């Protein structure tokens, strides 16, 4: 036994306890920015001494044991001979000796030698340097690091690392939700509705129980790690995990759901049964049925503040409803035909109508602010950023308007048929328009007149029903049953995703690189648009292909809502909701 006290740390490296702060006053470093990345040794690692000293014992090859050993003359003789050899001969001898001895001895030798070449970097380097090393690891590896020892766990859970890991990748998710009462009690799985990856009913109770603890152990000690892990779990829930919660909101029986919106906890559906329904997602119950229109509702919006719901109808009016009371506050008159589309920013609303005009309103006061005249045929789609209005019409044009003055700033000409869908990215003044001529055009209206079209995206063979843009990647879904991924800078089609059997009705871009699509074929599919392949089917209707279809999708970062129905009574009208939420571990 070697008494601990006699062992020297002779390998020369200094643990933080040994380091003394130098007084380098003759060197002034004026680059403060970089300084922060260096450790001045003032923060010591967490109780490193416990971990390093047992190994130092083994390490110490040169300190002489203080106990007396019986001298073995044969070993002495061998050692004397060995000492006289040259380094190369010693190496040769050692190799030869190793081959002559048994495995037990080799193992013991290894126990002496190996620690010399191992260094517990987290305990031996200053914390800042240890962190710098850990910064290079991903979440998975950091989890493994945490399991190595108490000391490693402490260091690996420091917030800084998880904060920097999360940058960009972590969505700002809402707080963990309830979604266990009301319509959530019975799942959406039923006769005719197949959710292939739904967990079996018998496991539901366990999951609901686990959902109750919204903030786990890790959140208590390392909030940023917990945040990152929850974000990763939510991403996996969408991508591959079993679906652990679902619900059905029934309503608008025998009718079509024409529009759907989500805002916070509110889900609003509009229908050609002349009403809208307002649901609480968390509680799984209907809050109000908004009645008053005398014609089908074809467009709706929820205000940014969440206090108003606005609807447009074939009765030519626009109604403003209070979310709090469920009563209509204003009825905006003026249009002389169906109000077909609308867009809102703050309390300013822009409506587009079959009467070829657009109108600007203040929803709080009910005041009519302006009429935008110029289109020669029905206005089909509109976008608004608070200042600029973008409208698309059946006259084949896209128009840019100043909402304040009511003037038409530009008319974008190029499409050969009706414009059906629009996407407006305000920051870069970019507009994407989908037309019955099968093409998608990308416009930059800061360019000189006549030169605004920066890309003509061709490939689809029918009408584009939905588009979403992130950076230079545009995803479009089309009645030709395909999804296409485009690079609008290059003007090229990066991927074409096939799988749906009939027209795609809407798409939602989720997480980093996933897109969900709904179709007339009665399915909801999930795609990886980076790799350009199908991930899985989320929902399948047995009546699909026979009339059952999915009209629209709406999503939040943890929820997918699908408006489902049919035109021939093969499928009842409802909204199917899928829960992808996760708690803070």
């Amino acid at each position: 036994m070697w008494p601990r006290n006699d062992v020297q740390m002779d390998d020369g490296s200094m643990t933080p306890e040994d380091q003394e702060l130098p007084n380098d006053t003759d060197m002034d470093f004026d680059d403060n920015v970089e300084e922060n990345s260096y450790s001045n040794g003032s923060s010591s690692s967490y109780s490193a001494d416990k971990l390093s000293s047992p190994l130092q014992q083994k390490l110490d090859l040169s300190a002489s044991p203080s106990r007396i050993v019986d001298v073995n003359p044969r070993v002495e003789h061998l050692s004397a001979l060995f000492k006289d050899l040259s380094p190369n001969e010693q190496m040769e001898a050692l190799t030869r000796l190793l081959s002559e001895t048994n495995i037990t001895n080799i193992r013991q030798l290894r126990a002496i030698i190996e620690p010399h070449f191992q260094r517990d970097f987290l305990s031996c380097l200053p914390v800042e340097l240890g962190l710098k090393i850990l910064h290079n690891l991903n979440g998975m590896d950091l989890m493994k690091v945490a399991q190595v020892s108490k000391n490693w766990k402490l260091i690996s859970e420091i917030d800084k690392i998880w904060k920097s890991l999360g940058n960009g990748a972590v969505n700002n998710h809402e707080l963990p939700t309830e979604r266990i009462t009301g319509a959530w009690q019975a799942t959406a799985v039923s006769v005719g509705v197949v959710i292939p990856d739904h967990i079996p009913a018998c496991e539901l109770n366990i999951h609901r129980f686990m959902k109750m603890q919204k903030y786990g152990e890790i959140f208590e000690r390392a909030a940023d790690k917990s945040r990152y892990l929850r974000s990763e779990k939510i991403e996996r829930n969408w991508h591959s995990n079993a679906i652990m919660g679902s619900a059905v909101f029934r309503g608008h029986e025998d009718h079509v759901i024409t529009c759907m919106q989500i805002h916070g906890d509110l889900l609003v559906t509009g229908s050609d049964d002349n009403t809208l329904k307002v649901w609480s997602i968390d509680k799984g119950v209907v809050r109000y049925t908004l009645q008053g229109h005398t014609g089908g509702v074809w467009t709706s919006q929820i205000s940014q503040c969440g206090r108003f719901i606005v609807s447009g109808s074939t009765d030519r009016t626009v109604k403003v409803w209070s979310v709090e009371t469920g009563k209509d506050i204003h009825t905006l008159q003026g249009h002389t035909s169906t109000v077909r589309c609308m867009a809102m920013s703050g309390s300013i609303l822009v409506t587009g109508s079959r009467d070829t005009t657009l109108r600007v309103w203040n929803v709080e006061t009910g005041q009519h602010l302006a009429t935008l005249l110029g289109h020669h045929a029905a206005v089909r789609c509109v976008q608004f950023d608070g200042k600029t209005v973008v409208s698309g019409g059946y006259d084949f044009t896209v128009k840019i308007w100043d909402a304040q003055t009511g003037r038409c700033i530009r008319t974008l000409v190029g499409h050969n048929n009706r414009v059906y869908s629009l996407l407006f990215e305000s920051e870069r003044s970019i507009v994407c328009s989908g037309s019955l001529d099968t093409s998608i055009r990308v416009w930059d209206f800061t360019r000189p007149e006549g030169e605004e079209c920066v890309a003509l995206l061709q490939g689809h063979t029918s009408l584009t029903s939905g588009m979403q843009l992130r950076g230079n990647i545009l995803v479009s879904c089309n009645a030709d049953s395909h999804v296409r991924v485009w690079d609008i800078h290059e003007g090229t089609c990066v991927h074409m995703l096939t799988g749906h059997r009939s027209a795609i009705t809407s798409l939602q871009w989720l997480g980093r690189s996933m897109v969900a699509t709904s179709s007339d074929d009665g399915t909801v599919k999930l795609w990886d648009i980076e790799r350009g392949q199908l991930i899985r089917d989320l929902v399948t209707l047995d009546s699909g292909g026979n009339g059952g279809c999915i009209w629209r999708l709406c999503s939040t970062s943890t929820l997918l809502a699908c408006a489902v129905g049919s035109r021939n009574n093969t499928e009842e009208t409802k909204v199917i909701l899928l829960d992808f939420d996760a708690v803070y571990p």
Partner: protein
Amino acid sequence: MVKSPKSNKKGGKAVKVNNTVAVNENLDLIYTLISSDGEQFQADGHSLKLSKVLSLAAKCLQSTETTIHVEKVKGDTLKRVLEWCENHKDDGPYVSKCGPGLRLPHWDFRWLKSLDNQQLFDLITATNDLQMKQLMDYSCKTVANMAKGKSPEQLRQIFGILTDEEEAELALNEPGPSNAN
């Protein structure tokens, strides 16, 4: 590590202020560096430029002095530091990219890989003391690569860490290599 003086590439530069000229000239001077354990090395200003501490030390020298005492770094570590500097003296400015996106150049990758853990850790400590951002990023990345994709048990083996139980046992029993056969 003796270097013959390089031809002054900056010969065409106009003389602005005395300071600027002095710094430029220093880059071609050969300095003697003495490690904490007394070993001596030679390096020119171009190499020293890669360490903020060393280049400032050089700047602060008296006009006739060319010796820098590097008190915090041992001989064999300093040798390696200077070897790396020699290889990178002609590099352009370095933009730090810590994190999973950082990729090591071929030479650095192989060179760092050939070091054992002790040498690597000594090197990291030296880069901290000498304020060498690029080498620090690379060597930290190298250690991180050793930890990538490993299970906790593998990590313990590679870095010689005892589990909390083993540690406790050790504290009680204090075993050492036995002479019994």
